[in-house]
């Protein structure tokens, strides 16, 4: 694993894309096929099931280092990363790992069949065979998530340089649920589509937020304009009569949505549909909370199906009667999509409506109604655009409505992870209710690094109480919190749950007394719910 550890260090020590690319290509050029497939899988987020509970790793590491567990935990709060804490705390070994990445991954896989004593023996022995960096990487293989800034796109670029195969082909080949332990590098990467898995989805084409004035886009008639729904982006695949459903997170979610499977089965021809999976009842969308009841659990009960039925709002067609039509222009794909839906009417299948307006001001007016229709805003797609891979500028834009916002007081802080380890960067916010501050949202994003440092300093100087890693602080700082949706919740003290809360700005001009109240939030909830 020496080479893989070296690759991870190289990726970790630079923010420059070219340097990362070079490190990846070097690894691929030198690595064995077996190691390469693991490298591709791990760095694109394909992680085998965790073979060991992290609580056990903590205990074993503390015992190997002869330290009490509380001291390990204190160290972990500071480091902010379990794999790193374990690597740092263990006594030095003076060894370098002689086993390959593949061998280590197979070893980890074999642990599922072993009892705790054997697993402990294997893990602690492995630690003794490794350097500090290798231990860190090994622990990450167990706990998962490298977060070293390698996107799927970058991995595809590296593979393309390594193999000479074009990027679009490779990113399609990497889709789907291939299992690294059972997949050969050459089969997955080098061979053409004849053997390709029937369930394999296409890479999604993602839009950028619109930053400029829409007037700059030319006539609205050149654009397909649709509402942007707050659901789950999904692909419904029908090939050889079989139906598969994929989420954007590249998860096969077929069994979560029986009504969509049923819809797929009634289609009279093979097709791949792209659209929004959305909870929908009595002619209108439901809040995202309803959809969450469908994703969160393995078994979908009758009651959930009744309370939160889903539909697919279809907006694109990627494959039609066996041919990949992604290179066709949007307007032509749209005609095929309309054909397909018109000849296959189904309750769970809705054709995304196109908004036809002659002027952008007319479009803007409709955008203004988004929230009352439970939409997040509009999608603008150039009628001549092909269906691209990944997030690309130019042809597809999302034009979201401005977030709802409320001024709130920071009352709790926690240290962040990764780049923000040891900095208080994760906050809980509260609003006033009868003279008391009631927490209602957590937010981690929206501040600049400089602002985080400033808040961190404030937190460290104004701690009131400690609850494990959480610190309550003097209620003094006010932030404007933005969010996309609001719903009632029985799980929170405030009685509400927000969608995508984040810090819009630091209101240094406001005193904590000037923050909003729970009543404000409730009135927003009422307005939002009435629009339903």
């Amino acid at each position, binding site marked *: 694993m020496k080479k893989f550890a070296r690759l991870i260090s190289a990726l970790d020590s630079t923010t420059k894309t070219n340097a990362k690319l070079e490190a990846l290509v070097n690894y691929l050029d030198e690595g064995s096929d077996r190691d390469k497939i693991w490298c591709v899988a791990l760095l694109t987020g394909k992680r085998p099931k965790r073979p060991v509970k992290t609580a056990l790793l903590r205990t074993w590491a503390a015992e190997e280092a002869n330290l009490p567990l509380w001291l390990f935990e204190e*160290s972990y709060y500071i480091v902010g990363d379990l794999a790193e804490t374990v690597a*740092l*705390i263990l006594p030095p070994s003076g060894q370098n790992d002689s086993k390959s990445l593949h061998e280590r991954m197979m070893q980890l896989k074999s642990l599922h069949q072993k009892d705790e004593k054997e697993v402990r023996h294997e893990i602690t022995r492995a630690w003794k065979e490794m350097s500090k960096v290798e231990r860190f990487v090994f622990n990450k293989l167990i706990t998962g998530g490298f977060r070293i800034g390698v996107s799927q796109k970058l991995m595809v670029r590296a593979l393309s340089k390594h193999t000479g195969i074009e990027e679009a082909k490779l990113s399609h080949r990497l889709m789907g649920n291939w299992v690294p332990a059972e997949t050969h590098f050459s089969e997955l990467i080098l061979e053409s589509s004849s053997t390709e898995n029937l369930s394999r989805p296409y890479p999604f084409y993602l839009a950028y937020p619109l930053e400029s004035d829409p007037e700059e886009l030319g006539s609205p008639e050149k654009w397909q304009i649709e509402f942007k729904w707050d659901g789950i982006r999904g692909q419904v695949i029908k090939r050889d009569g079989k139906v598969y459903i994929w989420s954007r997170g590249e998860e096969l979610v077929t069994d979560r949505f029986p009504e969509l499977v049923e819809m797929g089965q009634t289609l009279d021809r093979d097709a791949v549909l792209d659209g929004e999976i959305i909870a929908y009842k009595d002619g209108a969308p439901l809040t995202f909370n309803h959809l969450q009841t469908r994703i969160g659990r393995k078994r979908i009960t009758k009651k959930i199906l009744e309370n939160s039925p889903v539909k697919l709002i279809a907006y694109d067609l990627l494959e039609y009667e066996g041919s990949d039509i992604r290179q066709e222009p949007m307007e032509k794909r749209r005609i095929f999509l309309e054909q397909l839906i018109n000849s296959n009417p189904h309750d769970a299948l809705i054709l995304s409506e196109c908004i036809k307006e002659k002027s952008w001001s007319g479009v803007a007016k409709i955008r203004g109604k988004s929230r009352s229709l439970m939409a997040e805003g509009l999608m603008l797609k150039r009628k001549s655009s092909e269906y691209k891979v990944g997030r690309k500028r130019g042809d597809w834009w999302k034009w979201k409505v401005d977030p709802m916002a409320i001024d709130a007081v920071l009352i709790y802080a926690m240290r962040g992870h990764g*780049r923000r*380890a040891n900095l208080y960067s994760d906050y809980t916010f509260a609003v006033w209710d009868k003279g008391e501050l009631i927490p209602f949202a957590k937010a981690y994003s929206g501040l600049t690094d400089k602002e985080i440092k400033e808040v961190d300093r404030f937190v460290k100087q104004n701690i009131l109480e400690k609850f494990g890693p959480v610190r309550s602080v003097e209620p003094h700082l006010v932030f404007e919190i933005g969010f996309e949706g609001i719903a009632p919740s029985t799980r929170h003290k405030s009685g509400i749950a927000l969608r995508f809360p984040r810090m819009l700005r630091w209101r240094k001009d406001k005193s904590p007394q000037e923050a909003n109240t729970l009543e404000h939030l409730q009135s927003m909830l009422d307005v939002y719910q009435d629009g339903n």
Partner: protein
Amino acid sequence: MSLITFTESGFYCEKADLYIDPWKPVKRALITHAHADHSRSGMNHYMAHLHSIPVMKHRLGDIDVQGVEYGETICVNGVNITFYPAGHVPGSAQIKLEHKSESWVIMGDYKLGSDGVSTPFEPVKCSHLVTESTFGLPIYNWEPQDEVMNTINKWWAENAASGVTSVMLGYAFGKAQRILANLDPSLGEIFVHGAIYHTNNALSEVGYKFPKTEYVTNETDKKRFRGAIILAPPSALGSTWIRKFKPFKVATASGWMALRGARRRRNVDKGFVLSDHADWTELNKAVTDSGAENIFVTHGYSNVFASWLKNKGLNAEVVKTAFEGELSEIGESTTAEPE
């Protein structure tokens, strides 16, 4: 009444009527070392190791200061005061105060390993020990200096080979001299930032010798920077001054670089783990070797380290001070958390 008490102005010895490293202006101050958080302005009279004096005068101006040697004992109203080497930076001292059967050692900042510049640390026996805890967590364990310096020299050589300037960031007093003394001068020219240049000059007054360096001025021929190494204080990062070395790679040397999060936040090309403070093993060894029954833990992870010492059966408590440890070196928050 204890020989030393903890006051709002700092550690106070009432019997001798003097303070050690006070953070508010007082009449008489004993100074462990010349770093700004331990050696502050505004005292009527200072006492410090002879090697601390030039840097103190350079930073504080014309002060009234009495110099002492390591091991020399001075008696003030029956209190015996002795300075022992602390190994932190040139002139750094642990200060021992004894009266009757009570003996206190205020360690200031210290490290146990020899750095090739400062007089190496000596363990001192006492009944009451005041220790820092900047790196008082078991995640901090330093590699030997030779290994770290090898990687620094290797980094410089690689940059030089690709025609790039190496900019090495380190605190202007202590870290910079330590790196300078252990660089391989055969690799190329060594330039220094003004802050380091003046500190080197001050130290040369008391006999310190360093490899040949040159002060970077506006007149320096920029072509000469290619392949050279530049030593600069951390504040140079992101300044206009640093741009004159383009194309360059920048590294920082600090104990904080042991953590991935800190390395990534710092936004440098390379982070070397090199500290002038004791690591976890050294802190524990220093406490044990002192034989002290009462341990007072100051700046750093003081709560955790004190709990750990108590866990081991020692009589340990936390003392709040205004010292900053190494935090100021990477420009992060300099405030320790209260209990």
